[in-house]
């Protein structure tokens, strides 16, 4: 079925079709709509979900952890300060290996207070042991919400699917929905090894674990993360057969003969692709790489993609506040260290707090990248693009 939906509506629609057992949530701009629309589905009997309107995000994700440890399929949605307040419990969810799925709408973290998009919120939770997938548009947000549930349950790890606040969350686009009956069939029942509700075999979750076994448990969690990429590829392949939409780990656009490229995440991928088309019309060999799966980081696929270009501009909608630039830039530099096909890298930190980036902006970045290709030198490796006084 083809419909017009905003990113939030599309994610709520996906949740309706997924029909989770429990959703616990707390309102926060710009993610509120996802669960609010979902609460209507609950009240109208379109889903069988137990809906818990909690008194804070900390309580919401805690309720999710409790529910998930019984074997329930559990989802929630939040943004910015909400995911920051959940931070403590994010590690509990991944440590207990609970496949909770969060629809995360990217919004800048305070202070100063801002409600618009950047990636500082999701990237502040980067090291919490959650799978992170960044989407480019409404269609992808819808599809990835369904994909993430299956991936998380297969990997026994929690996952967050992100959209860009207001840009995707409130932007209406054409979305193709999978049939209602197909989604539960695609997902199947959640299989669980240990359930809190298995009263015949009582178990303890999250018990004190000191020098004796803590490290082994953490090592097994890391090992689980190490097995996620093949799971994502398999599930994306199955979903492709179901929907006709095939998603990669790393989205390459016109990269085969590209001389210069940009690397980005989220909705900027879409803006960038239009810039690529415009420049291609002028005969310029430009390409784009979009990091779709961010955690775990798809090292091999990313090295293969970046190595095709001679110069790569890395666009980060976040800064690590370490004086080393943005998150994606640091990842890209790290994975390319051992490669003998190292392109020149330049970091463009852009769009903090929702400052817009236009097609023309990206065209101007490509122009700079061509200049680097010509001289073979990056004069300044980290720049703050589109900010006053730069």
């Amino acid at each position, binding site marked *: 079925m083809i419909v017009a939906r905003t990113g939030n509506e599309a994610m709520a629609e996906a949740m309706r079709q997924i029909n989770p057992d429990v959703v616990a949530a707390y309102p*926060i*701009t710009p993610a509120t*709509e996802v669960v*609010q629309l979902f*609460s209507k589905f609950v009240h109208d009997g379109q889903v069988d979900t137990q809906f818990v*309107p909690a*008194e*804070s995000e900390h309580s919401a994700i805690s309720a999710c952890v409790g529910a998930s440890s019984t074997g329930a399929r559990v989802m929630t949605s939040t943004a910015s*300060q909400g995911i920051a307040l959940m931070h403590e419990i994010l590690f509990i969810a991944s440590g207990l290996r609970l496949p909770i799925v969060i629809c995360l709408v990217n919004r800048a973290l*305070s202070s100063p207070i801002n409600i618009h998009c950047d990636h500082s919120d999701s990237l502040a939770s980067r090291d919490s042991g959650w799978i992170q997938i960044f989407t480019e548009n409404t269609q992808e947000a819808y599809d990835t919400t369904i994909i993430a549930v299956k991936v998380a349950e297969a990997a026994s790890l929690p996952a967050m699917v992100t959209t860009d606040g207001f840009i995707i969350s409130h932007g209406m686009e054409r979305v193709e929905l999978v049939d209602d009956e197909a989604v539960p069939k695609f997902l199947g029942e959640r299989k669980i090894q240990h359930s809190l509700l298995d009263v015949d075999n009582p178990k303890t979750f999250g018990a004190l674990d000191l020098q004796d076994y803590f490290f082994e448990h953490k090592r097994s969690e890391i090992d689980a993360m190490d097995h996620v990429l093949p799971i994502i590829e398999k599930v994306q392949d199955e979903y492709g057969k179901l929907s006709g939409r095939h998603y990669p780990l790393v989205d390459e656009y016109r990269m085969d003969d590209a001389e210069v490229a940009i690397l980005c995440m989220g909705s900027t991928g879409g803006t960038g692709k239009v810039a690529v088309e415009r420049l291609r019309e002028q005969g310029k060999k430009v390409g784009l790489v979009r990091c779709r799966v961010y955690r775990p980081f798809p090292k091999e696929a990313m090295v293969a993609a970046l190595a095709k270009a001679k110069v790569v501009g890395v666009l980060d909608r976040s800064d690590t506040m370490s004086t080393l630039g943005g998150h994606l830039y640091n990842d890209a530099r790290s994975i390319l260290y051992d490669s003998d096909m190292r392109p020149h890298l330049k970091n463009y930190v852009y769009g903090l707090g929702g400052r817009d980036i236009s097609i023309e902006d990206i065209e101007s970045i490509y122009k700079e990248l061509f200049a680097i290709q010509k001289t073979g030198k990056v004069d300044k490796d980290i720049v703050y693009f589109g900010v006053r006084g730069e």
Partner: protein
Amino acid sequence: MFRYEYYLRNKHFPHIWCTGCGCGIILKSLLRAIDRSALSKDEIALISGIGCSSRTPGYVDFNTLHTTHGRALAFATGLKLAKPDLKVIVVSGDGDATAIGGNHFIHTARRNIDITAIIYNNHIYGMTGGQASPTTPLGKRGSTAPYGSIEPDFDISGLAIAAGASFVARSTCYHAVQLDKFIEKGLSKKGFSLIEVLSPCPTYYSRPNRLGTAVDMMRWYKENSIPFARAKDMSAEERRDKVITGILHDIERPEFCEEYKRLTERVKGT
């Protein structure tokens, strides 16, 4: 002569509040009370969390701090301890103060620290689109409770009294003159003073609950408010669905900053 403009950051107007919202009435009442208290602008620190009420500090020319959801009282506690000479005022809403910030609320009252909190109670999360809050009355609708809330609601003033506040008063946006007096009294009270103000939200509370316009809400406050002195002799049945206004609680208790000072003097032997 009293002029609102003197206390406002006039360049930040027009404000963001909806037509008929009570936030502006409370803001003006606060300014009148401050003026009567003869406090200078620099002596005042106005602190807020997140929500419609929490936009207040942006509009006033005091020392102001706009913090995170629910935490205004925690920030204010730190500020008051560091600068006990400042008059610290917190503005907050029902969702901010009693849901996500409920823990800070009860412990600030328990410590009885010299802070004045003004809680704008509109029975709903206004800023995020009308979700039911801890003060949404049983059976009333919110966007997360389209068939009526099934959770009993909090009595904000009662909660503050039980937790240890030394001054607690309740008023409404209709009773603006009374509200001025309560805020003024709260400002002069040593210890934690709390003023709960019932405030209309025509956009997200009145509309789904078919309570009419902002004017209808004001009329409702007028007709359904009972002074505390009179309510004392009424039965629970008679008090049902009424707003009990007045100074509900006014006692003397040791204040936290003074106790803290006394402790440090005792330990240091000065």
